[in-house]
């Protein structure tokens, strides 16, 4: 047995998972301090779900070791299951029961008696603002409603480690906001959270620390701010109205600034270390000439930029499809 670090909620070293000849997770190290929010960020197929399923004892690692709250995920799987709560990518509810019946069942399976189970369920329903649809059959709920019940089911007993696998994938923006605010409340209560996502803004909005995953490997890790600084400072993007305008703009701006261009988006980027002052200079120059401009904007580097800088391709699956 290795010595365990008491303050680590997750301690994974050299974790490997293969499916046939495909290596889904490749020698991954992951450390999550108690009381923090760590996000695994990566495109579809990067291995995030496989990592999470190994930590939740649903998959057996082919190599390396992992401890959750000090318990080994293979030899002490039953103990891991008692301290962890996993909400998966697909609603883990019985579609033919009502939301309330689902929660009561999960509570009873956690060892609560019927009456306690009902009481806890009612509290959760109120906490997740689900009174309206609590007695409808899960199959008939919207994606956002289902996700809220799913989250509630994971919190019947406050877990030491909450694992959310892509909690907002497929949700509309309003439902996403509801889920985010719920997650923020949980975090404020001191829950340790491991969150996977393919949305950069989600990791940015929720996580203390982000681990970028690609092809089952960690390619970078740090706070969202640290990751953004790896791609440099902010810039001003000037978007031309048409291709002719793009040509004249490029000529005009390159005389005064250090520009880089993205012709397919008719965008000219200018480094802007002085923020507003640089923006003013660019605007004045544009105002003095007669070229059709769609947009002038100050851009702060996003995690998307970090992902492109580190992997040479965008993280969002939509962009990958476009590029292909």
């Amino acid at each position, binding site marked *: 047995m290795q010595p365990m670090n008491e303050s680590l909620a997750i301690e994974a070293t050299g974790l490997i998972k293969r*499916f046939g000849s495909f290596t*889904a997770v490749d020698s991954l190290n992951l450390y999550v301090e108690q009381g923090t929010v760590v996000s695994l960020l990566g495109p579809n197929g990067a291995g995030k*779900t*496989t990592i999470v*399923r190994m930590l*939740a*004892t*649903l*998959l*057996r690692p082919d190599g390396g070791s992992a401890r959750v709250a000090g318990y080994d995920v293979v030899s002490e799987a*039953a103990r891991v*299951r*008692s301290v*962890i*709560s*996993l909400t*998966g990518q*697909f*609603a*883990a*509810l*019985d*579609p*033919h*029961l009502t939301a309330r*019946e*689902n929660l009561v*069942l*999960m509570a*009873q*399976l*956690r*060892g609560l008696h019927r009456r306690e189970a009902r009481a806890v369920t009612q509290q959760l329903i109120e906490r997740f603002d689900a009174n309206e649809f609590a007695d409808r*059959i899960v199959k008939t709920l919207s994606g956002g409603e289902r996700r809220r019940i799913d989250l509630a*089911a994971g919190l019947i007993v406050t877990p030491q480690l909450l694992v959310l696998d892509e909690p907002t994938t497929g949700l509309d923006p309003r439902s996403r906001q509801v889920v985010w605010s719920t997650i923020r409340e949980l975090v404020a209560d001191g829950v340790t959270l491991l969150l996977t996502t393919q949305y950069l803004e989600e990791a940015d909005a929720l996580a203390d620390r982000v681990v970028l995953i690609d092809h089952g490997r960690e390619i970078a890790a740090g706070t969202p701010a640290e990751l953004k600084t790896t791609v440099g400072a902010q810039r001003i993007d000037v978007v031309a109205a048409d291709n002719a305008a793009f040509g004249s703009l490029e000529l005009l701006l390159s005389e005064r600034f250090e520009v880089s261009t993205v012709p397919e988006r008719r965008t000219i980027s200018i480094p802007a270390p002085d923020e507003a002052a640089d923006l003013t200079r660019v605007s004045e120059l544009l105002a003095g000439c007669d070229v059709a401009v769609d947009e002038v904007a100050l851009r702060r580097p996003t995690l998307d930029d970090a992902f492109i800088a580190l992997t040479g391709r965008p993280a969002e699956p939509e962009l990958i499809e476009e590029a292909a």
Partner: protein
Amino acid sequence: MTAYVRDTALLTARSLRALPRVPERLLDVTVQPIIFIVLFLYVFGAAIHVPGISYEDYMIPGIIGQSLAFGIIGAGVATSNDMNEGVIDRFRSMPISRLSVISAQVMGQFCEQILGMVIVVGLGLALGWTPHLTLVHGFELAGLIALGMFAFTWAGVLFGMIVRSPDAMQGVGFIIVFPLSFMAGTFVPISKMDAVPRAIAHWDPISALVASVRNLTQGTHATGSWQLTHPELAMAFWCLLVVAVCVPLALRRFNRKLAM
């Protein structure tokens, strides 16, 4: 142990509570045997003559044996459906015995098979089937049927976890169980079949089920192979063999069923 019993009961109640909300899942144990009984009794039955026994008395025991075997398909399709549901993942990641999850699956399917059997027996009696059962034979029959349901439900649960989809399970059932259940002396006597199906029927496990039920309820005696002259023993043997093979494999499969 008490936790295991409690969790199994809770999870079984979950499956049974969901049933009335998806009645189409019950078609295989309700409508299907009714159609078979009516078709064979009134469409084919008129042209089939089995010496020394009324066709009702000949065929209903056959349908009972066939229904037991169809339990494989029913339990398989249901398990394949259930295992694709996300809720199984939640159960597996919770601090409950994994054995209770699969036990509840078997219990739920077992209850469905009982419902199907009640329908077959009830309709059979209503349409003129007259079993001649002594008390001893009655207990023997009930015991064998319960054992058969248990065995074939486990087999179905195992296959349901192995196949990729409920449709695939339907297909396997149609290709293997369906013909075997028709060759088993279910609707026509084995002795009048062509040589090849007759040879298969002599050792078809479903023949033992059909012959046992017919033997115990009507006092008929089949011949042709050891298992047909000793159908109760053969039926118990086949069922115990299925249990011995399928239960450990199903448990192992469930623990390893680790979809991405």
